[in-house]
């Protein structure tokens, strides 16, 4: 089987499974650009995944995927608001409080799953279906590779240029970046630093909720305890990986996802190096090793790191 034949099969799944990372990481870009580190993404994703599928699924509230998605957004937004209260208003250490939110989301989503579903839930017919984009999906080869995904995949990739525009071309974007680089100066210019950081954290929470729902009511329309399995932390790593730029974050999500997909192919085809099959345990590590390797090289780009990242803002003291 040739590499091109593999790639034709691998691209659609790469896009599908890059989507949760992309939603969560784009939200986190805004949060970090405003000077806050949110490590609670994982917990927010899990809560979004559970509430989303519970509201959408026939065996849950049977409200369909759109209401399910809105419920996931609301859930993530509320958790983002709570994170803002803890880390911005109460000025708790951001890394620790984020981990707290992750543990909270893991525990609560598992508990609700047990109490409310009896152990199994699938979105079934109420999941977002794959859509054949008109005209584009009928293109030979390309149509099958790029234009037969569910709606959330298109939305996630459409959000990349929108995020770039908002961050770099609008007054909001300027205020967000100012809060992340020099909150004291922003404050003296009349920017309400607390309000901006609340807004980005709520937005980041909403995006994490959507990221969870893009799994539970789209890509893998089921829920299992801790089903995100660290995806929220990968998303945070991708923000560093991409040097806080939405475009490079997207590249990172794609690289991680395609590396993961190709290592599955390497396992399926028993690919050999020097006459012996590569052990599966080594192949499974490839996407993670790759991410760490690029993170190390990305250190050179650290000048784009928001200067006030993880530093709480206290009026008149910074």
């Amino acid at each position, binding site marked *: 089987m040739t590499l091109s*034949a593999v790639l034709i099969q691998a691209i659609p*799944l790469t896009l599908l499974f890059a989507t949760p990372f992309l939603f969560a990481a784009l939200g986190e870009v805004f949060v970090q650009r405003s000077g806050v580190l949110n490590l609670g993404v994982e917990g927010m994703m899990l809560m979004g995944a559970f509430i989303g599928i519970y509201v959408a699924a026939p065996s849950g509230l049977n409200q369909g995927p759109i209401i399910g998605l809105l419920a996931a957004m609301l859930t993530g937004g509320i958790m983002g608001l709570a994170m803002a209260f803890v880390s911005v208003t109460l000025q708790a250490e951001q890394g620790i409080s984020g981990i707290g939110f992750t543990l909270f989301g893991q525990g609560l989503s598992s508990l609700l799953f047990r109490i409310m579903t009896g152990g199994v839930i699938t979105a079934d017919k109420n999941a977002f279906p794959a859509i054949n984009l008109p005209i584009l999906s009928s293109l030979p080869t390309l149509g*099958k590779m790029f234009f037969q995904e569910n709606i959330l995949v298109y939305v996630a990739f459409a959000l990349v240029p929108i995020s770039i525009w908002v961050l770099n071309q609008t007054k909001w974007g300027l205020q967000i970046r100012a809060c992340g680089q020099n909150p004291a100066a922003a404050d003296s210019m009349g920017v309400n630093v607390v309000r901006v950081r609340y807004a980005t954290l709520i937005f980041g929470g909403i995006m994490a909720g959507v990221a969870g729902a893009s799994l539970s009511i789209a890509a*893998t*329309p*089921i829920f*299992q305890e801790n089903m995100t399995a660290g995806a929220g932390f990968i998303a945070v790593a991708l923000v560093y990986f991409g040097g806080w730029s939405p475009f490079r974050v997207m590249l990172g999500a794609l690289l991680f996802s395609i590396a993961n997909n190709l290592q599955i192919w390497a396992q399926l085809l*028993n*690919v050999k190096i020097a006459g012996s099959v590569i052990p*599966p345990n080594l192949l499974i590590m490839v996407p993670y090793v790759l991410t760490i390797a690029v993170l190390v090289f990305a250190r050179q780009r650290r000048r784009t790191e928001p200067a006030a990242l993880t530093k709480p803002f206290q009026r008149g003291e910074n």
Partner: protein
Amino acid sequence: MKKILLFVLALVVLSAGVVSAQSSPFKVAIVMPSTINDLSWSQSMYDALTGIQTAMGGADKLEIAYTENMYDVTAAEQAVRDYADQGYNLIIAHGTQYNSFLFNVAADYPNTSFAWGTATDTGESQGLKNIFAYQANAEQGGYVEGVMAAMMSKSGTIGIVGPIPAGDALLYINGFQQGIKATKPSDTILLAYTGGFGDTTAAAQVAKTQIAAGADVLTGSAQQVVGAIDAIQTAGGLWFGTQWDQSGQWPNTVVASQAYDWKPTLTDMISKIQAGTLGGTVYTLTLENKGLIFDYGKVTIPDDVKAAADQAVADIIAGKITVEQDLATPEAVEMTPEAAAATPEATAAATAAS
């Protein structure tokens, strides 16, 4: 008069309570790597315990305590020691990875009985007399399901979604492959591991990749498989399960599941402990002793497939077929262009047409 009656009644109730409290229940605790609702390894043991509890007459006769999500072996050791301190009669360390501490703990609590699996070592060589070991010969049921899978696959490409290559999962996977090879040697087997037990997304990703490569029948092991079952259902293909009956949620996708029945094992352990023997026995679930059983969903199984499966079961029990637990290193898969070109839609259509 009424008051006296009430007083007498209260006395009767109280004394009944005292009497029943005196015949204290047999206390079992289980420490497990995943959860009681994982639809696989941990649930198979937990449900066997609750089944025995019902048969024995409820929580008054058999008390069950459990600790879940003990992926961390150090935390698991703490939980096992806590249960021993609390005077539990039998403590089950439900994971092969607990070997690192179990013998030390058992030596510290010689009057408590311990059980662990997948394992065959009861510590007798170290002078320990209070450990039971248990295992499931999952390769036997795997072989039978492999025979059925090979006969029911239209595309001749079968996918296996593995967790990590170890324990009963590996036994099952090896047996499944032998069953396919014995039935249709030319079939393509697509095997990939996720590297974990609970990552449903990774399992779904492996399954979808296998489906893209032309697979119309899948199998897999560990609690993460729900992601893979859902993927093959969407593609209109078939699923073979192990460790637990998975047909409840996907009745038209799950053809058969090899389920572990630990009830006879546990019943024997409990009666041995009550008779004063605290360990020393290795239990093995096999087709012959009916510790391995098959549950079927609503998928119509052709008569010849059913007959071939029954024959395989009989041959394994009779010793005519020996299912190896280990396999040689696999050869590189050379996929035909037709198989590579097969789309999920085409696979679904082929399955629907059957």
